[in-house]
Structures are given as C-alpha cells and as structure tokens.
C-alpha cells in the first residue's frame, strides 16, 4: 500500500462501513421493539373494549360477551385476522364472529396475568394477547376466565420488511456519498503534496528557483526550509566557483610572470632555463588539474537538461575560428534531439578538450558524429593525426592522470575529461579511426 490516498481510503472504508452497519442494526432493533410495543398497545386497547362488553350470561352462573356492545368491526368479519375467544377453566364459552379457526388455548396463564406473545400457527404469524380474569357469578363466587385476542402479524412483518429495505438502501447510498465526499476531501487535502512534486520537478528543470506556491500552514515549514536549502546550495555553488576562479587567477598570474621572466634571454643558462620551464609547467599542470577537478559538478539530479547538439555546435564554431589558419576541416554531423542532464560547464569541458585535441593532432580532417543508438547518445570524435598504437590506447588515460610523471607538453585535458566522465558515469572508449588518427567514443545515457 504505497499511496497515502489508498491507505486513507481503505481505513475510511472499513471504519465507515463498520460504523454504519452497527448503527443500522441498532436502529432496526429499536424500531422493531417500538413497533411490537405499538402492536401490544393496540391489542391491549382492544382487550379493554372487549372486556367492557363482558356480561353475565342468561343463567347468571357464567359470563359471555355481548356482541351488541362490541365496536371493533374486524371482530365481526370472518377471516379478518382479528379474533377474540373467551374460555372458562375448561372450555371455550364465546368467540367473535370473525373467528373460524381452531387455536389452542394458552397454557399456564397465572390468574390476572396479561401476556403478549408472538406465535406461529398454520404457517402464519400471530400476535396473541391473553388475559386471565376473575369474574363473580350470581352467588358472588369468583370464577377464573381467560380472554384471548389473536391478531394476524403478516401486515406487521411486511411493514417491518419494507422499513428494513428502506433502511439498508439508505445505508448504501449514505456510504457511497460519504466515500465520494472523503475522496474529494482527500484530493483537496493532498493537493499541496502534489504541488510540491510538481514544483520539485520545475526546480529540477530549472524553470523555477524556489517553492513559491501558497502552501497550508502544516507544509509551509517544510517548503520554507527547502527554499533556504536551495538558496544556500545555489549560493554555495556560485561562491565555490568564484573562489576557484579567484584561486586560478591568483595562482596562474604569478606563474605567468615567472614564465615570462625565465624567457628573458641571456639571464639564465640553457640548462637552468630548461629546468625552470619544466618546473613551471609542472606547477601549472598540477594547479590546472586540481582546479578543474574541484570545479567538476558531477551527479545528475539537479542539473538542467541540455541539448548535446547545441553545445557541439557552439564548441565546433569556436574551434573552427581558432584553427582557421591551420586549414583544418571540422565536419560535424549530429541528428540528436534528446537532452541530457549535466552541468553545462562540465559537458563543455568534455567537448572542448576532446575536439581541441582532435584539432591539435589532426592534419586536415576532424570528424564529429553524434547519433542516437537505442537508449543512449553516442558521440564519436575522430582525427587524421598520427594516432596511437593499439598498446598505447590502454594507458592513454593513466598517463594523463599521473601528473607527477607527465612530460612537458602533455596536456591535462584528457585527465580532466576522464574525471568528469567518471563523475557522470559516461562511457568513454578509444579506438583507431579509419581516418588514421585517434577515435574517441562517448556514450551518454538519455534522461
């Protein structure tokens, strides 16, 4: 369960459905009890009206119900479902005109007990209200009688069933409505998180510098701190680069002065001049290499996507200018459209060094090819210079990197390129070009 939304939806669903079902069951119980009570009350009222119609019979020894004093019409209609029966201790002594069936006499009725019960009889449900009464005969002797009312419960159950159906229908509707509502609330509530995602992407793409949407108070501390972090990182990067530039300037200018001094003819012996040049060169190369290395940004996460083709065009245009008088032809063919995520200055460093090397060592032709191969971009830089022997290809890099052993005239370009290529996990291979010189093959991963 990876998304907050699905987690919250699942929890709400379980809680909501559980709560609603319990509520509906409780409600159902309460209503059932209330309806039964109403049925009992109705039968009781009828019981009293029938009791009001009880009188001594003709003999005066027993009692009967006088039909003329009964007002409940259903008691006169056969099969109306409402019946009244009067028993003495042994047998039935009166029944309402509606009554045609044969119900059992209720058992174990305690004298003067009023008992309401629900029974099954002949596959139908009935309510029964039984009352045991004492009634005096002419001799003022009390005899025990039982008055029993039967009422068919089919209507009641049908009504209760209708109520239950309505109740469950509304339950389902309510749950559905609440779930939709919760979904909307969640969308609304989680919107700031989605917005953060979008802004992070915009910042990655350098379309934005900071989080500037209006975030709710709970998230504001987060975005504010991220903004501070971003700002600090940008400043730090700039300060760092400036510091490196200053360092380069302040180290290299004295080196340039020293070199100028050593070139004054007649002041030094030839051997001294050579040693001074060599040491000056070494200092310069170490300074350059370490500065370049320190300036390499590396990584890919926050870099702006750049088009390799654009930088190739720019670099080749600049180098054509520089090598114009050499009569060199630099052929550039690129059909790349994809971008890659790299610091522009790092990419420029790779292209500048490699193409410059090709121009330097090439005699007449330099060929640059950039193309897409499956999911990577391939860049080939070839020249028609003297090239390298196959066994030299393998240690071309280590030679450049081990600065303490470099000879005068060996540039630090390749070593710098190698560091950048490592930092970005770009593949760099060397081969012999069919032009005769060196062929460098770079493979960049697409974004």
């Amino acid at each position: 369960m990876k998304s907050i939304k699905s987690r919250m939806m699942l929890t709400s669903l379980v809680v909501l459905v559980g709560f609603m079902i319990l509520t509906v069951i409780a409600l159902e119980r309460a209503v059932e009890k209330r309806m039964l009570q109403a049925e009992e009350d109705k039968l009781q009222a009828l019981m009293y009206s029938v009791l009001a119609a009880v009188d001594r019979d003709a003999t005066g020894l027993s009692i009967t119900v006088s039909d003329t004093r009964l007002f409940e019409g259903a008691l006169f209609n056969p099969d109306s479902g409402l019946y009244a029966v009067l028993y003495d201790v042994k047998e039935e002594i009166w029944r309402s005109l509606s009554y045609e069936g044969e119900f059992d006499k209720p058992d174990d009725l305690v004298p003067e007990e009023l008992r309401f019960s629900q029974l099954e009889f002949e596959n139908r449900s009935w309510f029964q209200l039984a009352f045991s009464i004492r009634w005096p005969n002419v001799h003022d002797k009390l005899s025990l009688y039982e008055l029993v009312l039967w009422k068919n419960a089919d209507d009641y159950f049908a009504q209760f069933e209708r109520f239950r159906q309505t109740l469950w229908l509304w339950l389902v509707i309510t749950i559905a409505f609440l779930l939709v509502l919760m979904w909307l609330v969640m969308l609304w509530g989680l919107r700031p998180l989605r917005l953060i995602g979008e802004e992070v992407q915009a910042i990655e793409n350098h379309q934005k510098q900071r989080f500037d949407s209006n975030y709710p108070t709970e998230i504001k501390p987060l975005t504010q701190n991220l903004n501070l972090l971003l700002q600090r990182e940008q400043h730090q990067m700039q300060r760092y680069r400036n510091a490196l530039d200053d360092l380069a300037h302040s180290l290299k200018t004295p080196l340039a002065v020293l070199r100028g001094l050593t070139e004054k003819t007649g002041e030094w012996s030839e051997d001294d001049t050579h040693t001074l040049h060599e040491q000056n060169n070494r200092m310069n190369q170490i300074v350059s290499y370490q500065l370049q290395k320190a300036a390499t940004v590396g990584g890919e996460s926050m870099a702006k996507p750049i088009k390799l083709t654009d930088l190739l065009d720019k670099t080749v245009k600049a180098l054509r200018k520089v090598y114009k008088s050499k009569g060199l032809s630099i052929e550039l063919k690129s059909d790349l459209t994809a971008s890659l995520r790299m610091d522009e200055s790092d990419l420029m460093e790779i292209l500048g060094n490699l193409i410059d090397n090709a121009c330097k060592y090439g005699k007449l032709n330099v060929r640059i090819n950039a193309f897409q191969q499956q999911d990577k971009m391939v860049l080939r830089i070839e020249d028609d210079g003297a090239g390298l022997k196959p066994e030299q290809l393998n240690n071309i890099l280590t030679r450049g990197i081990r600065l303490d052993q470099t000879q005068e005239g060996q540039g630090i370009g390749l070593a710098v390129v190698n560091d950048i290529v490592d930092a970005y996990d770009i593949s760099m291979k060397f081969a012999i070009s069919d032009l005769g010189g060196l062929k460098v093959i770079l493979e960049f991963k697409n974004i």
Partner: protein
Amino acid sequence: MRAIVIEDDQDINQQIVSRLKQEGFAVDSADNGVDGLYLMQEFPCDVAIVDLGLPEMSGMDVIKKIRADGSDLPILILTARGRWQDKVEGLDAGADDYLVKPFHQEELMARIRVLIRRAAGWSDSTLQCGPVVLDPSTQRVTLSEQEIELTAYEYKVIEYLMVHAGEVVSKSVLTEHLYDDEGDRDSNVIEVFIRRLRQKLDPDDSLQPIETLRGRGYRFTLEPAKVN
C-alpha cells in the same frame, strides 16, 4: 604594426608590452576594461590582447562592446580560467583566439602574427608579393632570395604595407601604426623611409613595388600570393 594590451597584472602587462616592442610593434596598454575599450575605440590598431578578468569592465564585455561597434579588429583573449565554457564564450563573444595563463611569450607572438595575417587575408606564415618575401617570425625580408638589410623602422613600414598589399595606406595611418608616442610622429620621416625602401627593393627601378598616390598615401603594388 600597432597592438593594444589590456591586462591588469602589471608584471604580465609589462612583459607582453616589452616583448611586443622587441618584435617591432607599437604598443598601447591599459590595466582596466574601461581604459582598454577607450583605446580600442579611439586608436587604430592591428591586434588586441585582452585579459578576461579585468577590473571595472570585464574582458568579455569589452569584446562584446567593440564587436557591437562594428569593429573586426583581431582579438586574442588571455584567461587564467582554463575552463572550456569560458573559452567558448569568449570566442562566441567575438574573440578570435585564446591563450590560457601561464603561456609562452613565443606562443603569444606566434598567435598574434597569425591573427594579423589572417585578418588581412593571408593564410601562409610568410608574406609573399612577387619576388619579395617577408617572414614575420624572423623579421627578414628577401628579394629574389637575396636578404635585404633593413632598419627596424624600414621593416615596420614594409611589413605594414605588405600585410595590406593592394590597399591604399595613408601617411597618417602608417605613422599611427609605427610609433608608440605622439611626440615621435613626423610624416616627413615616412617619406624618407619610403624612398630608402624603394632604393633597397628596386635598385634598378624595374619593379616599382611602392606606388605614391598624391594626397592619399602609398600602395604596395606587387601581387600578394594569398590563398583566399
């Protein structure tokens, strides 16, 4: 030839200026971008050497400004920042070549000569017009493979005329490209140099390499062997 050096480090500035003078250039120099731009705008010159990290106005801005003014003066940038982004941006802004500090004075001179020749349409390292050949790196001039002895100023005059072979060069332009300071300038001296050059290059008056256009200046008449 006249060069402008814009470099804020006094030692390097001094080294470049003295080396250029040694090579026969007339040199103006500035130690900040604003003064440098003023020199480039106000005085005719053949090449400019501009450091990128300058006070008051960066070298990049100086180059952009001078290019925006429509100048096609050859410019070489000096930079301590070895990063390619800076080099490419400098070249993109209008510089013609770059050199990373520290550099060999020899290399700087060689690049400057290439830039000057290239700007005048020459592609070879030596200038050749008919039987006259001038090698800027050795500052030697030969006529039909016989070396001609020239004084420093005579050399400066013929170098300028040959670089601009076929073009009319006025006396004042020639003066400006030869002398460091205003005080030295005397246009009569130019006439003396021209007369001496004619005697040395054309003793029997058959080549007539330098033509005088009355009221307009001089023209080197021999066909230059330019490639383009």
